[in-house]
């Protein structure tokens, strides 16, 4: 548990903000896919923490970045906090993404804030990668330039066609498979649940059962104690599944392990 002092908190695009904390302890061990569980300062009527993926860290300066979208009461208060205010952070929490091997070419499939959740992969990729970014509209695309600067090629899909492919981000996968058929591809995905379920089916179909998805689920304790955040994971029992805790057994799961409803 660390007291994260806010260094800056600024609007990005649309309803997205970026908050930067001074949180050296968490920075010291954070990896892609980890999240922090945040007690939002001043929001005294909200008793629960909020989970946010760690978007970027600077272990040398102790700075930790989170990109968040204002969607409800907590994120609304968060967006009003100023430099110098302190949010208590638990983290890094969860099981992170598998580290890409030196010969692997990581492909990040992102919807919405998933782009932020996957961004740390650029730190662990040895020789580039690809980022497939999906959003509703042009303004909601996050971090495209940052991915490019980090050496990733970027492809975009928007629901309204205002930028890139008009349609689903999963539509972009086959093109990557085609263009990079010579590479050892490793897939990572984060975004809204329906998108991730589509990713699971696609990856199984295309022969990537070890692709990893980071599942976003309502959380409460964040440390495995309350069983609020569960998702169905395949199990060797009559029902074929058990409820695994995304906070402690996840949020990252392999697509082959996710139990898909018929």
């Amino acid at each position: 548990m660390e007291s994260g002092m806010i260094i800056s908190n600024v609007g990005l695009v649309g309803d997205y903000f970026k908050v930067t904390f001074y949180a050296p302890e968490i920075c010291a061990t954070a990896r892609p896919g980890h999240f922090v569980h945040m007690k939002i300062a001043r929001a005294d009527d909200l008793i629960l923490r909020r989970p946010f993926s760690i978007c970027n860290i600077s272990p040398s300066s102790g700075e930790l970045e989170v990109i968040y979208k204002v969607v409800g009461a907590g994120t609304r208060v968060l967006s009003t906090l100023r430099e110098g205010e302190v949010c208590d952070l638990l983290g890094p929490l969860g099981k992170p993404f598998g580290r890409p091997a030196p010969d692997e070419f990581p492909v990040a499939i992102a919807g919405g804030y998933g782009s932020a959740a996957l961004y740390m992969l650029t730190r662990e990729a040895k020789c580039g990668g690809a980022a497939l970014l999906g959003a509703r509209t042009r303004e909601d695309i996050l971090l495209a330039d940052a991915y490019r600067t980090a050496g990733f090629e970027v492809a975009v899909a928007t629901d309204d066609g205002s930028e890139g492919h008009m349609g689903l981000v999963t539509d972009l996968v086959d093109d990557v498979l085609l263009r990079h058929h010579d590479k050892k591809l490793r897939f990572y995905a984060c975004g809204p649940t329906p998108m991730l379920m589509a990713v699971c089916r696609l990856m199984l179909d295309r022969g990537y059962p070890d692709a990893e998805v980071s599942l976003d689920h309502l959380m409460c304790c964040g440390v495995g104690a309350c069983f609020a955040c569960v998702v169905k994971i395949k199990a060797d029992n009559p029902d074929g599944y058990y409820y695994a805790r995304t906070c402690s057994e996840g949020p990252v799961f392999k697509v082959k392990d996710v139990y898909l409803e018929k």
Partner: protein
Amino acid sequence: MADLATDLGRIKLKNPVMTASGTFGYGAEYHKFYDIAELGAVVVKGIAPFPSHGNPTPRVAETACGMLNAIGLQGPGIDRFLHDEHYLPFLRTTGATVIVNIWGRTIGDYAEVARRLEADKEGIAALEINISCPNVKAGGIAFGTDKNLAAEVVSAVREATTLPLITKLSPNVSRIGEFAAAVEAAGSDMISLINTLTGMAIDIEKMRFKLANRTGGLSGPAVKPVAVRMVYEAAQAVKVPVIGMGGIATGADAVEFLLAGARAVAVGTATFGDPYAPLKVIRGINDYLDRHGIGAVSEIIGKVK
């Protein structure tokens, strides 16, 4: 440093602060943060004779100064609890005072899980009988809102074990004192309360219940005034020790329950906001006693009448 030791009849605690069942996992989750043996007692999540999936998701919803949950008692069942290294075997290694919360769908289930624990009781200080979970259709709340059924469950468990018994009461009743008296008469050595108040929340944009189970149990600071009142009434109605809970987040909250007549307290929902909450409550009680020049926590129990 005041004397925080608490006498709960057949068991003594080093301090009056326990964890509330279902909010502290099986201890291991928070042992990463601190030594859980520092707590008065660790009450584990409800154990049944069988493993159980729990309810579909979503299972929780935040509310004003509180939350609703309908976890539905997901759990490993008695076999794994007794033998899997994550559960009782782990707890035995910590030296913590362990209280096992039990539940079932029938009276026979309660007796069975009690019998199994009796047979393997090393490291178990007491059993807490959950007759009040609002999230399990068969059993649960029905036992908790019917005095006769409640007493029958307690009698059946009483016959199945020699361990000290705590009966956890439902707040969804009109006259809590009558329930306290009924389970005392049936052989409960202690009473704990409150479990959650049954509530509901609706997502108006999606036009559907926020919880897959429709209703859930309300907990957190929002319910504290109801909890303090019920603890006060229960303590007036019975001679056995009363353990108070419901919205405790600070030492001051705990002192309120102690003054109302609780001999020990439990911290639940607050732990989700702050894993260290139970330790802070212990420290807060001590600070209060020191500040008032009171030597022992026992001196304030039931002091406000």
